């Protein structure tokens, strides 16, 4: 965490989460895997009387898949809920966690970056109002930004006040 390198007079301008579209893939995959594990349990029940070995096999497969999917789903959600974009009057930080597996912190100092470009490409991004912030002609980019034009405006004000 970058808390140890706070500048004197630095203060929070805006805190925003990444756009909710990032959860869609996770939810769809989790639903699919839960469905498959449910079918395996159903098969275990159907074959319990006639084919005991098949019943136990499918039960264990269903149980393994269910537990794996359940914990993976919640670990993903908990990680992604901590992802955020923090804008201060000195810099921008994009924090990206995956619990113990990954921790990415992108810091963009307004001393070095003087331009920011808000981009929304495609039907989905324009309909759902999310996009990408591009700093200094692709030196740094931040994706999944909700209402990127508004965020870019906040950043520009912070850059100009330096």
């Amino acid at each position: 965490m970058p808390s140890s390198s706070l500048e004197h007079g630095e203060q929070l301008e805006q805190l925003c989460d990444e756009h909710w579209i990032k959860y869609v893939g996770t939810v769809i995959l989790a639903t699919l895997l839960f469905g498959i594990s449910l079918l395996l349990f159903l098969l275990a029940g159907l074959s319990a009387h006639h084919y005991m070995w098949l019943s136990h096999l499918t039960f264990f497969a269903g149980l393994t898949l269910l537990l794996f999917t359940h914990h993976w789903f919640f670990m993903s959600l908990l990680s992604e809920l901590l992802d955020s974009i923090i804008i201060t009057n000195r810099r921008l930080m994009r924090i990206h966690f995956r619990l113990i597996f990954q921790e990415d912190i992108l810091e963009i100092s307004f001393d070095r970056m003087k331009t920011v470009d808000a981009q929304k490409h495609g039907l989905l991004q324009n309909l759902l109002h999310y996009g990408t912030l591009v700093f200094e002609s692709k030196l740094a980019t931040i994706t999944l930004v909700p209402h990127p034009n508004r965020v870019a405006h906040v950043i520009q004000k912070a850059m100009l006040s330096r």
Partner: protein
Amino acid sequence: MDSLLSSPGMLAALALVLLMQAASLLLLLVNRQLFRAQSGRYKKLLADLGDVTAWKNPGRILFPVYFLLTVSITIATTTLFVWQPHIL
């Protein structure tokens, strides 16, 4: 339920199911600690920036749901294995 204790194979299967459930509950506790540590550091960063109220801890709703679902799955699947209902 008597069939669970009828053979070494069934006993081993029961032990495996219980082991998996125990591992699942342990993973729940580990995730809780990890998430608390991460969100604590995150909250500290915001406090250093002067505005801790800007962030509402998402775990306050999600963790109880995660806990309840994990316990429910543990009870349901263990009961299913112990009673082994026959659909056909």
